[in-house]
Structure formats: structure tokens, C-alpha cells
């Protein structure tokens, strides 16, 4: 699958330049912008949703912080928090998969690469899934697939809109084919959500690739992306290797993918919550008007119209 090389990315990002006041970076008081290098007071950076106030660079957000950014205080109800992978293939590459899982669980405090739940966004009830790239590159195995599928089914059951914030290198190879079929499983649940006339908005953040791009990330009624996020099926390096040529710098950026016709709107993170709320409200039936999707097919429209008069 679309081998988005998140290892390479991770290496790049951990290489900090050592010229800054290291002590204060270590204390977490200051953060250096990954893009422009400016030093930002960490509290301010988080207050600005991890978007650099100087250059507008969108730094990576943890799933927990993203939930705080989007969901109204005290309305978040997490779902299926106890699902864990049990290493079905007893997979071992240079290191056993079970060890990797334990390490990432300790490092992130998460059980796997997605958090799901129900909550309110500007008072609007939604089902929300947030992937976490810090957990094995946000890769999708059985747990991610199951949690997302249960979330979609819950949204269909509750008859509410669905938002999934994507961040993933693709399928989790350590679970082999069990990972691949999660693409079909999530798509199946989305088919039912869609047939129920409900709204689904994926938010593509850096990076969204491989099996996630080729399933629920691209199946939105409306697709939102964060500025400059990499959105790809196959990884850039894979394509460069097959073609033996360098690709343009903007290849597979949100802006590029939008020009190709696969992203509706690019929304800066600081406006994401209000944009989602606006879109969801635009899909709500207007008071006094009949929404045909919410009615059973045989419902006598005339009777309803008279009643509302």
C-alpha cells in the first residue's frame, strides 16, 4: 500500500538545530517554529492552536488537544476507549510488534492511533474521530478500523453528522491483510451513514496517505484540508523511485490536491471549528420547511405542509 514513508519524516522532524536556548526548549517554556525558526512562548503557541503566529505554519496537534479545540467544554463523551491490538500475526520485523505497541502506548498515553466520541460543536451534536499521528504514524490496523466503524454506526444510529480528523501514513503493515480490509469495513459503514441522508466531513491534516486516503478520508460529502498538509495515496518517495525524477515541491500538498479537484476547502486551523459549525448548520432543515431526506418515503407531504401552517 502506498508506502508513505513516515519513518523518514519522523527523522527529519526530530533534528532540532542546537543554536537555541536549549534549556528553555527543554523546559517546554519556549517552542521553536518548525518552519520559520522563530521562538514562540509555548503557552501562546497552544493558545493559537499550534499555528505559528509569525508564518502560519501548522504544527502537529495531539488528538486530545484537537478534541479540546473542536468540542465545547464538558460535552465530550469518549467511545470504545478500551480497544487494544492483540498482535494477531505475532509480527516481528526488526522488533516485535507487541513491543512497539507497548512503547507507543507509554509514549502517547493512548491505546491506539485514534480517539472517537460524541460531543457538541458550537452546540451542534456530532460524532467525532481524531487520528493521532504520534501513535505509529497514525497507521490503521484492526483497532483503528473497528473504532472508526463503530463511530460511524453510532452516528447513523443517532442520526447525527460525522467528522473525522485524518492523520495517517496508511495501513498498519504489522497486521497484514487484517489492516487492509479495514478500508472496506469503514467504507461499508459510511455507505449506511450516507444512505440515511447524513452529512460526513473528513478533515485532512498532515499527513493523510495510503489506505486512509483510499477509504474514509476521500469519502466525505465535503472534504476539508489544513493548509499545506500532505495528502497522498502513494508516498512521494515511492513515486520518485519508480519514475526516477524529482517531483515539484508542491506535489501532493493540500493546495495541489484542491486544484486536482479532490478537496473542497482549505481551512486554517484557527477557523476550523467555526467552518465546521457553519457547514453543519447549512445542512440542517430550516424551521417550518420539510426536509424530504428525513421523511419516510411514503410520508404524505401535503399533510406535513398543512400541519406546519
Amino acid at each position, binding site marked *: *500500500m*502506498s*508506502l508513505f*514513508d513516515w*519513518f523518514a519524516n519522523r527523522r527529519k522532524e526530530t533534528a532540532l538545530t542546537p543554536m537555541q536556548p536549549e534549556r528553555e526548549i527543554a523546559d517546554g517554556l519556549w517552542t521553536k517554529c518548525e518552519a520559520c525558526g522563530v521562538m514562540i512562548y509555548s503557552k501562546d503557541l497552544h493558545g493559537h492552536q499550534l499555528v505559528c503566529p509569525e508564518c502560519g505554519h501548522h504544527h502537529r496537534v495531539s488528538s486530545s488537544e484537537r478534541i479540546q479545540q473542536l468540542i465545547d467544554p464538558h460535552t465530550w463523551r469518549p467511545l*470504545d476507549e*478500551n*480497544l*487494544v*491490538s*492483540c498482535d*494477531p*500475526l505475532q*509480527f516481528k*520485523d*526488526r522488533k516485535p510488534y507487541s513491543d512497539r505497541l507497548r512503547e507507543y502506548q507509554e509514549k502517547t498515553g493512548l491505546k491506539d492511533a485514534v480517539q472517537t466520541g460524541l460531543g457538541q460543536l458550537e452546540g451542534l451534536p456530532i460524532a467525532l474521530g481524531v487520528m493521532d499521528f504520534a501513535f505509529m504514524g497514525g497507521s490503521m490496523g*484492526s*483497532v483503528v*478500523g*473497528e473504532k472508526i*466503524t463503530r463511530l460511524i454506526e453510532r452516528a447513523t444510529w443517532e442520526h447525527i453528522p460525522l467528522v473525522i480528523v485524518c492523520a495517517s501514513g496508511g*495501513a498498519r*503493515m*504489522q*497486521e*497484514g*491483510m*487484517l489492516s*487492509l*480490509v*479495514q*478500508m*472496506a*469495513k469503514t*467504507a*461499508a*459503514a*459510511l*455507505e449506511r451513514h*450516507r*444512505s440515511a441522508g447524513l452529512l460526513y466531513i473528513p478533515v485532512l491534516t498532515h499527513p493523510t496517505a*495510503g*489506505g486512509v*486516503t*483510499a*477509504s474514509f*478520508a*476521500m*469519502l466525505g460529502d465535503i472534504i476539508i484540508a489544513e493548509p499545506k498538509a500532505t495528502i497522498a*495515496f*502513494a*508516498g512521494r518517495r*515511492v*513515486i520518485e523511485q*519508480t519514475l526516477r525524477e524529482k*517531483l515539484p515541491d508542491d*506535489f501532493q500538498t493540500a493546495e495541489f490536491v484542491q486544484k*486536482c*479537484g*479532490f478537496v473542497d476547502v482549505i481551512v486554517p486551523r484557527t477557523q476550523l471549528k467555526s467552518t465546521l459549525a457553519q457547514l453543519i448548520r447549512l445542512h440542517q432543515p430550516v424551521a417550518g420547511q420539510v426536509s424530504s431526506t428525513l421523511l419516510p418515503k411514503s410520508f404524505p407531504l401535503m399533510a406535513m405542509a398543512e400541519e406546519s401552517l
Partner: protein
Amino acid sequence: MANERRTLLLEFEKPLVELEAQIQQVRDKSSEFGVDVSEQIRELEERAKQLRYEIFSKLTPGQTLQVARHPRRPSTLDYIQAISEEWIELHGDRRGSDDPAIVGGIGRLNGQPVVMLGQQKGRDTKDNVARNFGMASPGGYRKALRLMEHANRFQMPILTFIDTPAAWAGVDAEKFGQGEAIAYNLREMFRFEVPIICTVIGEGGSGGALAIGVGDRLLMFEHAVYSVAPPEACAAILWRDAQKAPQAAEALKITARDLLKLGIIDEIVPEPVGAAHSNPVEAAENLKAALLRNLAEVQALSSSERRELRYQKFRRMGVFSEVV
């Protein structure tokens, strides 16, 4: 011909070929000197049969991968032509392209009209280049979808044949929405009311295979493989060494037997001893029998039952634990 045979030889088939050469030698000698050696030949042939059986009954996953990719392995069009009484190939995605890496059309199977489609690898080097080694572009998946829509509209069952290393990874594929094309098929295949039976005939690789792999039944040939990604690519990423592909093939559980245990596939279609390429006619007969039996079973259901069962079949896939 002899030369070509040698180049297509898999490493583990060598003892078998040596034995066959020996049999030929004995034959030549006997006709030269006019001696009756039929007894020895019979014995040697029996030994060759035994050896072939032994070799192919315990292939490693790495060796199975080689068999699945064998250049003489029957392709989608070979099977379609072998199993159907009539067949007309249809072209184009109606969106501006006709991807030769995916073939499809309408045929008649045991009297019944069906839509058949699948990835098509080339039958020789030139054909392979033209067909991009069976790696489809977004247009290929959209062509498949258009044909499946047609089947759904005219109540024809859909038979898909999977044989691809992966979806094509190229600049144009990205520009034209490879991810969207695959995702769209995954969702729509749950919507169709007609029976869908998918068979992995050779190499099933990644989302490129899955994009025509959602059905009421998933069958798999005995020596076919189905993998989340090409083992070479997995090896390059997880072991940081593409040479470790055989280890990756082992670890990823890509064989029909493993996937039956994991609940991914429903049935293994047996291959002749020596694999499908050694006897394509027998392989096609086995395939046809399996397709007809499964088709009869799913056709006995109502369309709503079928869709519900298709949903539940995929809904169950995945292994995890839920700690309370």
C-alpha cells in the same frame, strides 16, 4: 522453446526439471538402440509425479509469491475465455480513459449473463508494458465501477478477478485521484444489490486489489497471494532492506491457507499439482465449479439479505481485544 522454458523456471522446480530431462534421455536412448525401457520410464515418471507433489505441497510463502507471479500463470482474460460460453469485452470509464490494466465485459456462464472484470497482467513483455503489469490507474477503477453499475442495473451477477501487485503509483494517478477512485469503489460495492463474487487468481496487492475485492464471497486460488502491500515494499520499510522480501512474505501471512484462518477469505480453489501454469485447463475447471456453486448459494438469497450479509461479513473482520 527450451530456452524460454529455462528462463521461466523457478529455483525450486529445478530438481523436477532435471528428472524430466533424465526421462527424456532414457527415451532417446531406447529409440536409438531399440530396447524396451517402458518399465524404467514408468518408474521415473511416477517419481517425477511424487516429486512435483512434494515440492508444491510445501511451498514457503516466499516461493508461493513466485508461483503467484509466474509469467505463464493464467490471467484474467485466460480464465474468462475458458469459463464462459460467450464473451464481449467492453471499454472505457466514460470519464476520458480506457485503462488496459483492467479488463471487463459481459459474458455467459452456464447460460447466465454475468459481468466479469479484473486486473490484466500482460502475456508477454510487450503486453505487460502496455498493461502496466496489471497496475491500474484511477481510470481503471472507474471503468470497473461503471461496469458494475451496469451489472446492477440489469441484474447480472458480478465476478471479479484480482491479479495486481498494487495500484499504480505515479504522478498522473495521484492527480486523477487514485485514493478517491479506490475509496469510491469500496463504498459502492456495498450498495450493489446483485451478487458479487471475487477471486484472487494470482497476486493480490494493496488497496489496488481491494478496490474490486468487496463481495458476498472471496475465493482464492491455492497458490495465489493477497497482501496489504508488496512484500518487497514492506521489507524496505520495516526491515529497511528490500532483500528481506521472503521474510516479509512469511510474516505478513499472505497465503490462501493463512487468510482462510484469519477469516479474510471464504474458500480456497484447488490448483492442479504443479500450480495453475502447469495445467491452465484444470485450473479453469476448478474455478468454474467454485464460482457456480458459490453463485447458486448467494443467488438463493434476497437482495436485501445479500447486502446485509455482505456488510456483516466485512464488519466481522479484524482482531483486537476489549479490556474492561
